[in-house]
């Protein structure tokens, strides 16, 4: 079968998210159901979910979700993992086989911590150590693909319609305070399991509806910092940009949004002197990370979620609130499916991030 990058297919996608600011548990079934009303935005070539707070029993450990093409790939990858990590628990991810989901790879889950001595010898901080291991597996070990690598969170994705993917992974058996979802309608590449959304590295996960025209410019820049875009699909690069700007450069999420969806110079020129200086700094210093073309994205991270549209707002996105609950989706109907009666519903402006966080989170951003 042709994989990403070998074929170009001329598209829509659907995204949906739910977040409990009070940290209450939401079943994965809720987010899966929200996707059913946007069925026609996908074409069955990719669906996926990211849940946060779903592994409380292992919340201090990195949860690796890995696709294997073969038992041999698994053997090779496990050998690699054993050399770098203490593996506290490993198992197949439970699935519910169905006619709707075909050609499943081997899907395994590992709860790991970096091996103490190896980590110390590497002179890297823990997250960088883990990120490099993930990138190494994905680029060097044939037939192994780590698609989720954060703590107390997990990505579940496949080729299929999102609601079928949710049933396949038995999402009703997981509970978390935050969920994002994606239904894929691939535009440039054929759908395969690794190419489904969300794309995740460490705690960051991205679902994306759109098409990034700056992909190659962004890729060339980000690959200078050790990231490798292995999937030739545009969403992957956004995940690395976020990881780079937030984890490595310590930008706030608001600043990150101003880099990837930078305001026009004409808009900047109308701001106050201080704001003008700040925005000009961000646009100039990170000019290669401006993401152009239509997008609406949801970024999941530990304790929060960010929704962002491109600055021209070329994709639809609606946000809503009800008490401590936050909802966001490509279409209002997906939100109403989750909660028919809302306190507030609005369409965020292009380039203006909507950021929600857990109430009791130590807020180092502000």
């Amino acid at each position, binding site marked *: 079968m042709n994989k990403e990058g070998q074929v170009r297919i001329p598209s829509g996608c659907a995204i949906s998210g739910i977040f409990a600011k009070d940290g209450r548990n939401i079943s994965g079934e809720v987010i899966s159901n929200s996707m059913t009303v946007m069925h026609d935005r996908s074409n069955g070539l990719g669906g996926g979910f990211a849940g946060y707070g779903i592994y409380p029993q292992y919340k201090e450990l990195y949860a690796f979700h890995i696709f294997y093409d073969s038992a041999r790939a698994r053997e090779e990858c496990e050998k690699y993992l054993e050399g770098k990590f203490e593996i506290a628990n490993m198992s197949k991810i439970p699935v519910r086989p169905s006619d709707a989901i075909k050609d499943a790879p081997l899907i395994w889950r590992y709860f790991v911590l970096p091996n103490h001595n190896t980590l110390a010898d590497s002179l890297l901080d823990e997250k960088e150590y883990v990120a490099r291991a993930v990138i190494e597996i994905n680029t060097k070990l044939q037939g192994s693909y780590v698609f989720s690598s954060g703590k107390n969170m997990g990505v579940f994705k496949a080729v299929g319609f999102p609601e079928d993917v949710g049933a396949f992974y038995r999402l009703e058996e997981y509970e978390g305070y935050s969920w994002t979802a994606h239904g894929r309608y691939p535009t440039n590449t054929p759908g395969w399991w690794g190419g489904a959304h969300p794309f995740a590295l460490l705690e960051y996960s991205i679902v994306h509806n759109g098409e990034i025209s700056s992909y190659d410019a962004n890729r060339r820049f980000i690959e200078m910092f050790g990231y490798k875009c292995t999937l030739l699909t545009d969403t992957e690069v956004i995940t690395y940009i976020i990881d780079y700007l937030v984890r490595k450069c310590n930008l706030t999420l608001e600043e990150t949004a101003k880099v990837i969806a930078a305001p026009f110079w004409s808009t900047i020129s109308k701001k106050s002197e201080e704001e003008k200086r700040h925005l000009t700094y961000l646009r100039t210093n990170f000019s290669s990370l401006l993401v152009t073309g239509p997008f609406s994205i949801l970024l999941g991270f530990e304790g929060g979620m960010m929704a962002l549209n491109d600055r021209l*707002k070329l994709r639809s996105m*609606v946000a809503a609130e009800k008490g401590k609950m936050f909802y966001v989706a490509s279409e209002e*109907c997906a939100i109403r499916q989750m909660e028919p009666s809302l306190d507030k519903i609005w*369409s965020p402006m292009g380039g203006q991030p909507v950021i929600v966080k857990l109430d009791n989170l130590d807020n180092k951003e502000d």
Partner: protein
Amino acid sequence: MNTINAGNMNYCELNELVRGNAGDIEINGCLGQRYIGAGQNGKTITINGVAGNAVGAYLDGAVINVNGNVQDAAGDTMNAGKIIVHGNAGDAVGYAMRGGEIYIRDSAGYRSGIHMKAYKDNFPTVVIGGGCGSFLGEYQAGGLIIVLGLGLESGRAVGNFPGTGMHGGKIILRGDYAGLEVPPQVKLDRTCEGDMETAAKYIKSYCDYFGADYAAVMAGEFWRMTPNSTNPYKQLYVQN
């Protein structure tokens, strides 16, 4: 009048029921089904719930009443008839609209009235009661867009870049728009009597549909945006 409970019904099935029904019809529990009322004439369709994308696309004379919000591209390429929304509209309301009237009680999204056009007796009109997003009237070629700015807490009712690519038709804005940034090909000035004569009819309808105070609405200040010549972009790409 016949009633349909939409719920999770597929949009094809729902639209077949609407098409097959000769008289007026009411849809309850609508949850994002697309293309409702597409191409319909000679009936009134009442939608309770959220109407999906492109409600009233190619509408040809039917009246669609929505008790709720509409998603993107309501009235896409509609020819005639009315869409009356007791709520908000998503992006691109009145997309490439060629005739008929759309009334949005509250606010509308980005690119309201994009590519609207008029021809002879076909004169499309969109009335937005609250505010709207950026790129209002983008590439507008004809017809009338009215933004009333009612119920806004502060600021202007239009976002950035109104009238981008506008080359025909008219936008009327209620409120103080002195100094609003518009493209060089678009002229911004106060309305004249002739403008308001045409607009009054639509504003009256808006007030009747949604119970607004007509006298109070008309007492506001009105500005207009129009292309500043008959061929404002003649030298944009090549001399023609």
